């Protein structure tokens, strides 16, 4: 059986030890190709110093560039329990774009802070982005504890400062761990140097995180693509999550009318159900008015029907959005005109700097927190609950922005 896989990202100030932590995770889990470590050790010794784990990634990338090892831009390591993928964030622009557009999806994050330097502006910006992306599984590591004599007092000071800030932006880290990536304390192994800490190591903490839920196990969301009137009236659509079965009591949104599934139709096949990911057709007991864009659900767990959406956008059009312009809102098969009612804040996706609050426009490659008003009610969901209805795009002829829904009334 294939082992489960958790994707995570490491963020934090550039000098706070991210690459050393990655190198250490790879080293401690024996994930580095044979000979590489000796090569790096030799080079460090040639320069008159001890081995530095921060260079491991550089050397692995070097091999990748030379095409010697066939690999993707992701870094892997594994424990007995599961495989891990560290998603590279080469420049925040690409990372944010991928996260918001769904091209790659981190399920957890490690926020790294230097024990000596404490919380910096960049730490805050990165933490803020975790909040925007709705990443709920967060580990904070307070690194370079070796430089502050493994002092519990210093740890508590930095921890307090960080928690204060994180609570302001609604992030509640699952773990806060004192580490030394350089010396390997509390990464894979516990350490006696900080006997005052009796929590989990980074690897143990990662091990407690949930893998993204299987779409089959989530509530039913059957989005309608088309209606065909043959000898019977077939409602064609795609099961985004959950399973639809013959005989199911169903509700059609946004109208809210109820009926029952008479049959599940598949071309040249006898079936009684369709699960997540399947494009299929159904017939219903009652002849209701159903249209493209409608969503069929079970009564027990329903999405939100609203015309006001709080969302985070990644703008990818050369032409800036000007306050008050009407554009298309597209989510699953729904397509309605909308306008951005309020631009709460705009962030530079490359520096993560705040550009403006209550802004009047959003420009190319900017990330914005906005309130969207659709012309008529749409069926949507918080991105963290059901991604398929929590992710949308804005468009004119082409796509001009990708977005995720973070809050619903």
């Amino acid at each position, binding site marked *: 059986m294939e082992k489960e896989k958790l994707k995570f990202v490491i963020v934090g100030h*550039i000098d706070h030890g991210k690459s050393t932590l990655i190198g250490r995770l790879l080293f401690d889990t024996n994930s580095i190709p044979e000979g590489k470590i000796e090569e790096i050790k030799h*080079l*460090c010794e*040639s*320069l*008159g*110093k001890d081995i530095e784990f921060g*260079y491991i990634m*550089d*050397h692995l*990338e*070097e091999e990748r*560039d030379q095409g010697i090892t066939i690999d993707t831009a992701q870094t892997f390591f594994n424990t007995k329990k599961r495989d891990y993928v560290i998603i590279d964030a080469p420049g925040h622009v690409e990372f944010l774009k991928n996260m918001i557009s769904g091209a790659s999806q981190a399920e957890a994050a490690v926020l790294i802070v230097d024990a000596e330097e404490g919380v910096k502006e960049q730490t805050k910006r990165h933490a803020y982005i975790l909040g925007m992306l709705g990443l709920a599984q967060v580990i904070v590591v307070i690194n370079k504890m070796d430089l502050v004599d493994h002092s519990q007092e210093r740890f508590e000071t930095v921890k307090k400062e960080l928690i204060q800030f994180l609570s302001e932006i609604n992030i509640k880290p699952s773990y806060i761990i004192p580490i030394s990536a350089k010396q390997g304390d509390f990464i894979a192994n516990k350490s006696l140097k900080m006997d005052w800490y009796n929590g989990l190591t980074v690897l143990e903490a990662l091990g407690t995180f949930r893998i993204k839920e299987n779409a089959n196990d989530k509530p039913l969301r059957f989005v309608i693509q088309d209606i065909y009137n043959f000898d019977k009236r077939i409602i064609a659509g795609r099961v985004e999550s959950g399973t639809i079965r013959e005989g199911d009591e169903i509700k059609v949104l946004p109208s809210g009318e109820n009926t029952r599934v008479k049959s599940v139709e598949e071309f040249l096949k006898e079936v009684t159900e369709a699960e997540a990911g399947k494009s299929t057709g159904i017939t219903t007991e009652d002849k209701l008015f159903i249209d493209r864009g409608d969503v069929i659900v079970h009564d027990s767990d329903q999405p939100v029907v609203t015309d006001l959406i709080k969302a985070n956008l990644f703008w990818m059009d050369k032409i800036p959005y000007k306050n008050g312009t009407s554009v298309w809102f597209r989510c699953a098969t729904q397509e309605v005109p909308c306008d951005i009612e309020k631009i709460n804040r705009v962030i530079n996706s490359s520096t993560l700097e705040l550009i403006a609050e209550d802004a009047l426009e959003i420009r190319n490659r900017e990330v914005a927190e906005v309130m969207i008003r659709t012309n008529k009610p749409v069926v949507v969901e918080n991105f963290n609950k059901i991604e398929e209805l929590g992710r949308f795009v804005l468009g004119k002829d082409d796509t001009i922005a990708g977005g995720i829904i973070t809050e619903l009334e």
Partner: protein
Amino acid sequence: MIVVLAIDALEHTLVEGFNCKNLMQEFHGKTDISEFSEPRTMVLWSSFMTGKNMEEEVMALGDEGMWHTKFDIKNTFFDQFKDPKIIDLPGFNYIREQHDKERILLKQFFDAQSEDEKKSIRTEYNNHAFEHHRKIKQEFIDALNEDYDFLLGYFSIADVIGHLNFGNRAMMKMIYKDMDEIAETIKNNYIVLSDHGMDKIGMFGDHSNYGFWSSSVKDFGNPKITDFAEIIKENQQVK
């Protein structure tokens, strides 16, 4: 103490690319060496210390002879100082046995026929350069704690290693970061200066047509390498 960190073949784009803050300092840029027919190490450092274009003089010594150029201190701006310390500078007190051997191994590398032979020569060449680097580094750091009024440390590592390994970015990064750490240990104001940078040719490195400078005090714009004699003299008077 006025300190000059003279680094052979320090490439402007890599200093930025590897985010070497101590090498970059507040102000930094490229030097203009377009007046020279080729970016030759010996010519450039000779021109630096004399404040004059020395291409003709140095070239007249021939390809082999030029490596043994030795200017008298009277012909250099070092003469302005009471107690200067210069470490291993080409054209002044370049350590001959060390650098002659580098060129011999370089030649052997290109003359070698087999892959294995080349690899083993390159290893010897690299080790030889690293060993020298460790010595120079120690001498420089020790000198920082002495009472010299001028200290110039010349580091050849980026050039020597670069010629046969510039395509290995990870290796170059470690060298640049090491130079950055050396710069970090300097407590006085200092100037970082290179004669030329480096371009990649496959696994190898070739001299690029501009040098690098940085300072924490002043923006020098796009200076020539011969301007630094004057710049450093002024700096001394300010003190």
